[in-house]
């Protein structure tokens, strides 16, 4: 199951990242990412609301997936993670290399200027793996802890649609 989560991370490059503002309002933005196993790297501006939110509360939520034509092909991840700035020089270098490899378009831009941009990592605590090929609404939950990864299998939320949903022509 961990492998399936990693595959979904490999098949996408963009995630929605939610943080919580000081006033309690959630804030979602789209962010490019790279990953190393389940560890996710991304870059944010130090002047962004998002960066301020994470500094105050490191709990973030990520969702990764894409629009579909056939509901049965939905594969997505919803992740609860702790985010922090990458301060270790070696990890920083590796994160930037992975981000550039994943997003060659970024090579045309200036490399992240440490005074302006922060390289961040998000370490998942709970990963919900949605795989509708196993049934509409099928979701398995992975809990990541220092002791390893534990799986809670198969919740199906079919919203009462059952098998009635069809492919989009």
């Amino acid at each position, binding site marked *: 199951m961990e492998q399936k989560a990693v595959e979904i991370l490999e098949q996408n490059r963009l995630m929605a990242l939610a943080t919580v503002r000081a006033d309690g*309002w959630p804030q979602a933005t789209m962010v490019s990412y790279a990953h190393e196993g389940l560890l996710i790297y991304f870059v944010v501006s130090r002047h962004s609301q998002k960066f301020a939110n994470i500094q105050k509360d490191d709990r973030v939520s990520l969702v990764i997936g894409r629009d579909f034509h056939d509901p049965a092909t939905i594969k997505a991840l919803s992740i609860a993670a702790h985010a922090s700035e990458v301060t270790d020089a070696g990890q920083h270098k590796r994160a930037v290399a992975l981000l550039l490899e994943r997003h060659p378009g970024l090579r045309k831009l200036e490399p992240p200027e440490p005074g302006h941009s922060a390289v961040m990592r998000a370490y998942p605590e709970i990963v919900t793996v949605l795989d509708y090929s196993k049934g509409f609404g099928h979701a398995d939950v992975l809990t990541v802890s220092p002791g390893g990864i534990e799986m809670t299998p198969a919740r199906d939320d079919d919203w009462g649609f059952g098998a009635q949903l069809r492919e989009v022509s």
Partner: protein
Amino acid sequence: MDRTAAELLATHRIMAVSTVRPDGWPQTTFVGYANDGPDLYFIIFRGSQKFANIAAEPRISIAIGDEPPDMRLARALYAGARASEIEDPRGREEAWKLLKRRHENLVGTPIPDAGNAAIMMARCEHVSVVDYTKGLGHTEEFDLAIRGDRPDVGGR
């Protein structure tokens, strides 16, 4: 509403919806949606964490955008909105019609049972439009309601 914002809302079918759990942890999922101007309609499972979160805290955040072929073409829309369930049967029918128009796979499907699924409405209040076609990092922000003023949601 801003033209780019209107276009982004009209040309997408899924959005990331972020809610806040009672323990303060944000929670994000994708949902299919349809919109009528700044009003967003979507369906959530009544037994879901998301539904419980919104019942306790109606302030949500949405993000719409997709992977650009080139960074310089990146466009996205973010909005702070307040969500509530549409309980009025006529309002549910109207929202269902909009959802069917946007999501062809719903055509011919009966409206989901109100006991299982809640039809929700969220009105965008604070909107940010990211449009790198106007320059890298170009972002415009605007408010659609007076801050702190709860818009008239639900039961349309």
